[in-house]
């Protein structure tokens, strides 16, 4: 599998790009030319210069530094959301798919209800209920997305549980918990990897949308969606403010989308042959 991965240029390229962006975010304090919170109010809306490579914003803060620091909330929160989603979804899916019976019935009915709500509206409802704040945004996103994973994993589990090797471990008396961890999880990991890398892109857009509307990451934390919110206020007088954060989001989300497609090719050779 690793060889197929190395051969697939898109897979390597996108993974490398995402890693570079992540590293830039982690190293932001070292490489950022300025303090992202330092205001220089007399110098607001400055254009490109050596001191401020991408210019300054409405309070005279360095846009490049804010972009670099902004990787942390933008990418970090999306990844965190996906970890939470997969964790909860996998737990519920495995429980339902493995134990069957009443547990399955209850979980799957809850999943049905969750899937019958339009996700966008649910995010807003959860944020409205819990209050405007970053943790709640993550909770809201996990809350609306886990059901998809639960359903997918349950289906996966059901397919695999009838396979011979699982039947066999049962016969030789391996404990149920062990069967779950040892056999089931690896067998559905491939599907998970593909779906979740596609969904990171979704999470990035979703979280930045909330920040853009003022319901997510709050000022002065530099987050790309929140930066676009500020850019919107000066759309007529300083339209260039909205260019850089927007392009950055498109690049990052595209990288994840391409990565998802590429991983599918790598992990599922049948598709490639087609």
């Amino acid at each position, binding site marked *: 599998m690793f060889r197929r991965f190395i051969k697939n240029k898109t897979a390597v390229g996108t993974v490398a790009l995402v890693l570079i962006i992540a590293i830039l975010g982690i190293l932001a304090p070292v490489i950022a030319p300025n303090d992202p919170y330092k205001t220089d109010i007399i110098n607001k809306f400055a254009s490109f210069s050596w001191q401020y490579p991408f210019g300054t914003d409405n309070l005279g803060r360095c846009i490049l530094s804010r972009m670099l620091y902004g990787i942390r909330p933008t990418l970090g929160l999306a990844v965190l959301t996906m970890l939470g989603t997969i964790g909860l979804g996998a737990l519920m899916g495995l429980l339902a798919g493995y134990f069957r019976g009443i547990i399955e019935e209850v979980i799957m009915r809850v999943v*049905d*209800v969750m899937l*019958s*709500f*339009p996700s*966008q*509206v*649910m995010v*807003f*409802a959860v*944020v*409205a*209920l819990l209050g*405007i704040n970053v943790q709640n945004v993550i909770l809201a996103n996990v809350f609306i997305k886990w059901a998809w994973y639960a359903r997918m994993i349950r289906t996966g589990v059901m397919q695999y549980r009838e396979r011979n090797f699982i039947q066999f471990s049962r016969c030789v008396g391996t404990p149920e918990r062990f069967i779950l961890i040892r056999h089931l999880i690896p067998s559905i990991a491939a599907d998970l990897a593909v779906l979740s890398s596609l969904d990171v*892109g979704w999470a990035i*857009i979703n979280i*930045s*949308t909330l920040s*853009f*509307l*003022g*319901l997510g990451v709050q000022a002065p934390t530099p987050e790309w*969606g929140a930066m*676009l919110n500020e*850019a*919107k206020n000066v*759309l*007529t007088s300083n*339209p260039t403010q*909205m260019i850089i954060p*927007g392009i950055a*989001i*498109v*690049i990052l*989300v*595209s990288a994840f*989308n391409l990565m998802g497609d590429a991983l599918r090719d790598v992990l599922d050779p049948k598709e490639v042959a087609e």
Partner: protein
Amino acid sequence: MKQYVIKRILTAIPLIIVISFVCFVFINLIPSNPAEVALRVRQVPIITEEAIAEVEAELGLDKPYFIRYITWLFDCLHGDFGISYVNPSRTVAGELARCLPATLQLAGASLVMVILLSIPIGFLCAVYKDGIFDKVMRGLVFITTAMPPYWVGLLLMWLVAIKLDLLPTSGNGSWQHLILPAFTVSLSYISTYIRLIRNNMLENMKQDYVLYANVRGLPQKQILIKHILKNSMHTCIVAIGMSIPQLISGTIVVENVFAWPGLGTLCISSIFNRDYPVIQTYVLLIGVLFVVFNLLFDILQTISDPRMRKEGM
């Protein structure tokens, strides 16, 4: 088949009840005491413990949970969703009724754009597979799926309305106001459906009946339009139909960018103002719409395609 339809409708009813219950619980989870809020709404200057107790009795807040739910549900069925916390002179039903037409208008226009753009483009992409048009379109589709809708809105507003001065920037009034927001809403759906139609047509092209038609020597044009497109459209119409409620809820963000006076703008400002009855009713409305549209198009799909009946449930 009748049986299936009835069964499907019957499964939708408990779903709607659960949704309504979730909405009811939702408003009862908010941190502030509804009685206290009611007093503030009535502009009572000094709120005392006795006044709160009095209002609690008046609003029936001292009754058991389940009874309150039934009463609430009953009121909802009569179209009484309570009053807005922020503007006590307005009812929630009135607020929604005021904003709904604008949102339907936007969602309707977006739907038309989705259909008018995605079907021909998807068709051409499939016919000229791997040609220049197909490649360019696939590139565009790929980029647009990675663009956050609010950013698309800002770009369009800046380019079309400010720079080129072709259309109004925001608000509503004439049909020109509708174009930019509707296009922004439809963009992500257009790319989804271009892909869907393209793949569906390619799939259909491999089917046996196409081979037979070719063997029979029917003109290519006729095969493409009369058989392949028609067969592919069928799945797409169902998919588009099911996404109507999503389209309606998807207007939230775009409405806010373009100051479109619809449900989305109402919803966001209600969140900021913590106007819970409005949010609650909005969620209830969209939830019910979702179930109803799913039901409608699911039945439609089953009726039109007997093969699906067994898989469907």
